C-alpha cells in the first residue's frame, strides 16, 4: 500500500512544511515514515516516494544510502546503538560494550536469537557526560538511554521483549 494511503494525515502534514519548489525536502521525513513499521525501507517504498515527489528512484536510493539511520535490511525489532566514540570511550564505553556482548551472547552487528535487538556501535550521540549510553531505534522512534549499566540494559531487554510480545 502506498504511504499516502496508509498514513494520509502524516503525509499531508509532512508535505505542508515545504514550499512547492522545495517538495523534494519531504524525502527524509517520508523515508522515516516508510521505515516505521518494519524497521527498513524496501524498493517499493522508494518507488512510491520517488513518484510522490517527482524525483527518480536513484535520488531516493542515494539518500537512503547516505544516512546511517535509514536501513535497507531487516534486523532486530530494535537497534541498540551504543556510542563508543572518544568522549564515551574515555568514560568506559568500550568495556561496557564488551560486557554487553557477553551478557547478550552476541557480537557487535549481530541480533539476539529472539530477534528483538541488533547491537551496533555508533558515532557520537551528544550525550558525552552521561556515558555509557546508547539509543534504541525501533517502531516508536528513537530513545536515549543514559548512564547505563549492564544490569539496567538487561532490564530494558526484558521490557522490549514484553512490548514486542504484546504487540504480536
Amino acid at each position, binding site marked *: 500500500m502506498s504511504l499516502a494511503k496508509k498514513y494520509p494525515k502524516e503525509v499531508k502534514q509532512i508535505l505542508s512544511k515545504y*514550499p512547492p519548489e522545495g517538495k*523534494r525536502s519531504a524525502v*527524509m521525513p517520508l523515508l522515516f515514515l516508510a521505515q516505521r513499521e518494519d524497521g527498513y525501507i524496501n524498493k517499493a517504498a522508494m518507488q512510491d516516494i520517488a513518484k510522490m515527489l517527482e524525483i527518480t528512484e536513484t535520488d531516493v536510493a542515494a539518500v537512503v544510502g547516505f544516512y546511517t*539511520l535509514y536501513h535497507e535490511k531487516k534486523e532486530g525489532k530494535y537497534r541498540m546503538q551504543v556510542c563508543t566514540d*572518544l568522549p564515551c570511550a574515555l568514560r568506559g564505553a568500550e568495556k561496557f560494550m564488551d560486557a554487553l556482548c557477553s551478557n547478550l551472547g552476541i557480537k557487535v552487528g549481530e541480533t539476539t536469537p529472539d530477534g528483538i535487538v541488533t547491537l551496533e556501535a555508533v558515532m557520537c550521540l551528544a550525550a*558525552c557526560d552521561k556515558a555509557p549510553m546508547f539509543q534504541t531505534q525501533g517502531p516508536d522512534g528513537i*530513545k536515549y538511554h543514559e548512564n547505563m549499566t549492564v544490569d539496567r540494559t538487561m532490564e530494558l531487554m526484558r521490557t522490549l521483549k514484553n512490548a514486542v510480545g504484546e504487540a504480536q
Partner: protein
Amino acid sequence: MSHILLRHRDIADLDKLSVYKKNGGLAAFKNAVTKMKPTAVTDVVKNSGLRGRGGAGFPTGMKWSFIDNKNWPHYVVANADESEPGTFKDREIMEGNPFQFLEGLALACYAVGANVGYVYLRGEFWELGAALDEQIAELEEAGYLGDKLFGTDYSLRIYTHLGAGAYICGEETALLESLEGKRGQPRNRPPFPPAVGLYGKPTIINNVETFTNVPMILANGAEWYKTMGTADSPGVKIFSLSGRVRKPGNYELPLGTTFRDLIYKHGGGVQDSRKVKAIMPAGASSSLILVDDDKVLDTPMDYATVRTLKADLGSASIIVIDDTVSMGWLINKTVHFFNHESCGKCTPCREGTYWMTHLTERIQGGHGAKADVDLLLNVAKQMQGKCLCALGEFSTMAVVSGIERFRQDFDQAVKA
C-alpha cells in the same frame, strides 16, 4: 551568577510557555515586531559583539547584515545538528529552555525578513523534535507564530526537520543540501548562504546556542551583554566538559574563564586525581593542547587566546585527557570517526581519512614501524588546505598535533 542560556537551571518548568512568559519571555519578540525596524534588530545584535557559537565564531549581526535584499524570499535555519564528539549543549538548551531558543530564531527571522524558519535537528534528537513540534504549535495557538502577528503585516512559521545520522550535515551548506532532500554533501563556497542558500534563496544559518542569546540581548541591550566575557569575545558560553573529569556536564561561564577553573572548580578535577596530559578544546576536531606545564591550565578560554596554544576554541567542547591515555589510541578513535563521517565528495578527505585509519590501526595494534608514524604525519599534512570543507581539515588536527606534541607515545607504540 544566574544563567542567561541555561535559565531552566534557575527557573523550574521553564519549558512551559506560561512560565517562560511570566519570566519575561516573548516580550522582546513582540516589541521587535510591533515597534522596531528589522534592521534595528540586526544592529542591536551587531553592537552586542555576539559571535556564532557553533564553532567558527563569526560575528552574528554581521552575518545577518549580509542577507541579499534583492532576492526573495529569505529563510533562517537553526543548526541543531549537534554532532561534534564532546558537544552536548544545544540538546540541553532545547530540552530545558526551548522557548528562548525559538524566540531567538523568530527574532532572527524578523530581522532578515524571513517568513519561514527551519530547525534542522540531527535525527537522533527524535524526541526533542516531537517536543519542539508541540511547543511551536503552542506558540501558534498563543499568537506568537502565524499570520499577521500582533496586528502587523509580518507572518512567520517555524518547522522542524530531522536529519538521519550524518555529522557532515552540521556543515552549513551540507545542511542545506540535506534540508533540500539530497545527500548531505557540502557546496562550493562562495556563494555563501546569505546570498544563495536554501532553495537558492538568501539564508541565515546559526547554531542553537547563538539564537538562544538573542532574546536576552534584545531585552537587556547590547551594552549589558558586553559587560560579560572579553572585549573580543563578549558574553557567556556553554562549555561542554567531558572525558576524564569527575563532574562532566555543561557549564555556562563567561568567555575568558580559565581551563583550570572549568576543570577543577566546576568539573571537580580529574578522575582518580590523575594529571591532565592534554586538552581538546573543540571536540574531536581539535588540535591536542599539550599540558606539560601547569601554567597552560591558566589560559583564558576565549577565541583569540586559545589560538596562542595552537588550537581553536571552536564549539567549546572541552575533552580532558589524563596521563593514562596513549595518543596512539586517541587518534585512532578520532581518525575512525572522520573516516566514517567523510561524505566522499572530495578526494583528499575521502582517501586521506581512509589511509589514515589503516595507519593508526596498524600503529595502535602494535604492528607499526617508525616509518608508519612518519607516513601518517605526511598523509595528514598533505590533506591540509586541500579539502572542500572543514571536515577534512578537522580530521588532521589531532593527528598532526598528536604526533608533533606527543611523539614519545608513538615511539613507544611502534617499539613494543
